[in-house]
C-alpha cells in the first residue's frame, strides 16, 4: 500500500455569523468533519450541490481558509498552521485551479506576464530559462506561443482555462485541486478541456482533486468519488459503485437527477422534494433527514457516522 500524498483528518471550517456590535450569533459549518486520503496518481472527485462546502474544503487544503479544527497532511508533513514562509515551500507542489479563469487572470497583464509571475515568486530562474519553460508548458496545454502577447479578454473561455492551467503547471506541482474546471464551457469545448486534463495528468504525473457539481464530468474523469451534503461526506467509494449502486438516499437522488439521453425521463417521477436547509441552522441528527423519504426518529436523534460499507463508505442509518 502506497503512502497517501494528501490526507485530511476530521477537518472543520466554520464561519462565524456576526450580529450587532460584531457579536458572534452563530456559525456556518461549511466543512464539518471531513476525512479522506488521496493516493498518488488518482483523480478524486468531490461532488455536491452549491453550498455544500466543496469549494471551502478545497480552499482550506490550500490554506486560503484557516481550518477551525482537524489536520491536513501533505507528503508526510502537517501543513495546517505552518508559518507563511514554510507554507510557501509547500505551495508550489500543491496548486489550485480557480473556478473562473477569466477572473483569476489580471486583465491588464499580457498572458506572458501572468505566466512568468509564479516562476518569479517561487524559483530563481533567469528570464531566458523562465521563457523556455513557459513555452514548453504552453505547447503542452495546446496554445500557440503567439498567445503570450495577448490580453485575457482577447482569448476565448476555453483558452483562458488552458492559460490558467499552464500557469499552475509551470511550477511542476504534484497535486492540483480543480475547482469546477468546466463550469461555463460549452459541451464541445468541455470535452476537449477534459481530455487535456487527462493528457496532462499522464505527462506531468499529477494527482487531481476534482471539485464539481456536474456528475457527468465526475463520472468520466474520476476513479474515486466523495459526495458532500452540507459540509459532510455522506458517501464515498469507487466511481462505478457510486453511480451504479448508490447507497445513501441523497446520492441516489443526485444520480437519478442526471438526464440520461435515450433513457427514462427523470422529470416524470423525480422524488426528491425541497431544497437543502439553511447551513446556519442545521436540523438535528442526520442533515438530510428533512428531505429523506426513509427518515425515522433515529435519524433525528443521532447523526450517522461515515462507516465502511464495501466497496466504499456511507453515512446513513438505513443504507440501501
Amino acid at each position: 500500500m502506497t503512502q497517501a500524498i494528501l490526507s485530511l483528518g476530521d477537518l472543520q471550517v466554520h464561519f462565524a455569523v456576526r450580529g450587532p456590535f460584531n457579536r458572534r450569533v452563530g456559525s456556518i459549518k461549511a466543512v464539518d468533519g471531513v476525512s479522506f486520503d488521496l493516493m498518488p496518481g488518482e483523480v478524486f472527485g468531490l461532488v455536491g450541490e452549491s453550498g455544500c462546502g466543496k469549494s471551502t474544503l478545497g480552499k482550506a487544503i490550500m490554506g486560503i481558509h484557516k481550518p477551525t479544527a482537524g489536520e491536513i497532511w501533505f507528503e508526510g508533513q502537517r501543513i495546517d498552521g505552518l508559518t507563511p514562509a514554510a507554507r510557501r515551500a509547500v505551495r508550489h507542489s500543491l496548486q489550485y485551479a480557480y473556478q473562473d479563469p477569466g477572473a483569476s487572470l489580471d486583465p491588464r497583464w499580457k498572458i506572458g506576464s501572468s505566466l512568468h509571475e509564479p516562476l518569479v515568486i517561487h524559483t530563481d530562474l533567469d528570464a531566458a530559462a523562465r521563457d523556455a519553460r513557459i513555452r514548453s508548458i504552453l505547447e503542452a496545454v495546446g496554445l500557440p506561443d503567439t498567445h503570450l502577447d495577448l490580453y485575457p479578454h482577447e482569448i476565448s473561455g476555453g483558452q483562458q482555462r488552458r492559460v490558467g492551467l499552464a500557469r499552475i503547471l509551470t511550477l511542476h506541482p504534484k497535486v492540483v485541486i480543480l475547482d469546477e474546471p468546466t463550469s461555463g464551457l460549452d459541451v464541445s469545448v468541455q470535452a476537449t478541456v477534459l481530455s487535456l486534463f487527462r493528457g496532462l495528468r499522464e505527462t506531468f504525473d499529477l494527482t487531481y482533486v476534482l471539485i464539481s457539481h456536474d456528475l457527468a464530468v465526475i463520472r468520466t474523469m474520476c476513479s474515486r468519488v466523495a459526495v458532500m451534503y452540507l459540509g459532510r461526506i455522506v458517501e464515498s467509494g469507487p466511481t462505478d459503485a457510486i453511480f451504479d449502486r448508490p447507497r445513501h438516499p441523497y446520492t441516489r437522488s443526485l444520480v437519478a437527477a442526471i438526464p440520461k439521453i435515450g433513457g427514462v425521463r427523470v422529470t416524470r417521477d423525480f422524488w426528491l422534494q425541497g431544497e437543502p436547509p439553511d447551513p446556519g441552522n442545521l436540523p438535528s441528527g442526520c442533515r438530510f433527514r428533512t428531505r429523506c423519504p426513509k427518515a425515522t426518529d433515529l435519524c433525528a436523534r443521532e447523526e450517522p457516522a461515515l462507516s465502511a460499507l464495501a466497496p466504499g463508505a456511507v453515512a446513513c442509518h438505513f443504507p440501501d
Partner: protein
Amino acid sequence: MTALLAVEDLSLGFATEAGFASVLDRVSLSIERGQVLGLVGESGCGKTTLARAILGVLPRETARITGGRVSFRGTDLLTADPASVNQTIRGRAITFVPQDPFTSFNPVFTVGDQIMEILKWKSPRADQPHGRGWLPAVVSRYPADRKRLDFDAVLELLDAVQLPRPDQMLRKYPHELSGGQRQRLMIAMALLPGPDLVIADEPTTALDVTIQAQILGLIRRLATERNVAVLLTTHDLGAAYEICDAVNVMYAGQDVESAPVDRFFAAPAHPYTTKLLASLPDADGTARGIPGEVPGLITPPGGCRFHPRCERADGPCREERPPVDQLGGGHWVRCYHPHREAT
C-alpha cells in the same frame, strides 16, 4: 393546422464598431399550442437573440432586422403597431422566463409587490386601456376589486408551482429566497397573464442538478395542463431530452436541424448535431470535442457556417447555404451531406 408562432427566414444583426455582425441568418421555426420546443445551441449561436427578437426586446439603436417574418396567431409582430403589440401580446400572450433568477428581481421590493406590479398592467382580467383622460398611464389606479381577484390568482399559481406557504412567500425580499424558489416565482410570473407562449431562456442553467430536475418537471407539467407552448432555449442537451417535444439546433446564427425529440436523439442527421452529441461526457471517457472554434459573426464563413469545422464539407458547402432537406416525420436538416445511415 396553423402554428401558434412561426418564424420565417428571420435575418438580423447588430451594428458594432468592427462592422455589422450577422447574428441570425434566415432562421425558421414554428411552435404549436401546448408544444415544448427546445432551441439548442452553444453560446453565441444566436438562440437568446432569436428569443428576444420574438419578444421584440432587442436594443433599438444597434439591432437591425434585415428580413423575414415573425407571425404569432397570424399577425406579423415585426410590422404590427408597436403599441398594440405591447398592449395585447408582449407580456400577455407571450411571456418570458429569464436565465438568471438572481438578478431578475429588484432587490429593494418584496416579491409580492413585484408580482402585483406586473398584474396591474398585464392581468388577464384587465381589458381596458390604461389611464383616464389626460392622466398618463403610469399614475392610473389599480382597481381594488380586480386587485383582490388578481391576488387570489397569484396565491393559486404559487401553489401550482409548489411554493410552500404562498402568502408568507409574497412578503419576502428576493435575497431571502433560494435560487430554486426564485425560479419558481419567475415561472409563476410568466404564467399569471395567461399566455399562449412562454419563452424560457436557459431556465435551469444557474441551478443545481436536483433543483433542475424539479424545475424541468414543473415546466413540462404546467405546459401540458395549461396548454401553453414553451420555447426552451438551452445548451444542455440532457435538459432538452427531458421535457421537449421537438428540438431545433442552431449553429452560429443558422438553424441546422429540427426533429421530434425521439428521432432527434436516435438519428441525428447534421454533422454538427452528431458531433455535439458525441461531446457529451460519458462513463468510459471517450467524449470528443469539436475541433476549431465558433466563427466570428462579422465576417462569417459563406454557405453553411459549419463548413470550416466539418470533415464532410466540399465546394457547394462553401458557396451556398444548404436548403431544407425533409427526412420525413417532421425531421429536416440543412446539409448537403447529412448522416442518413441511421435513418
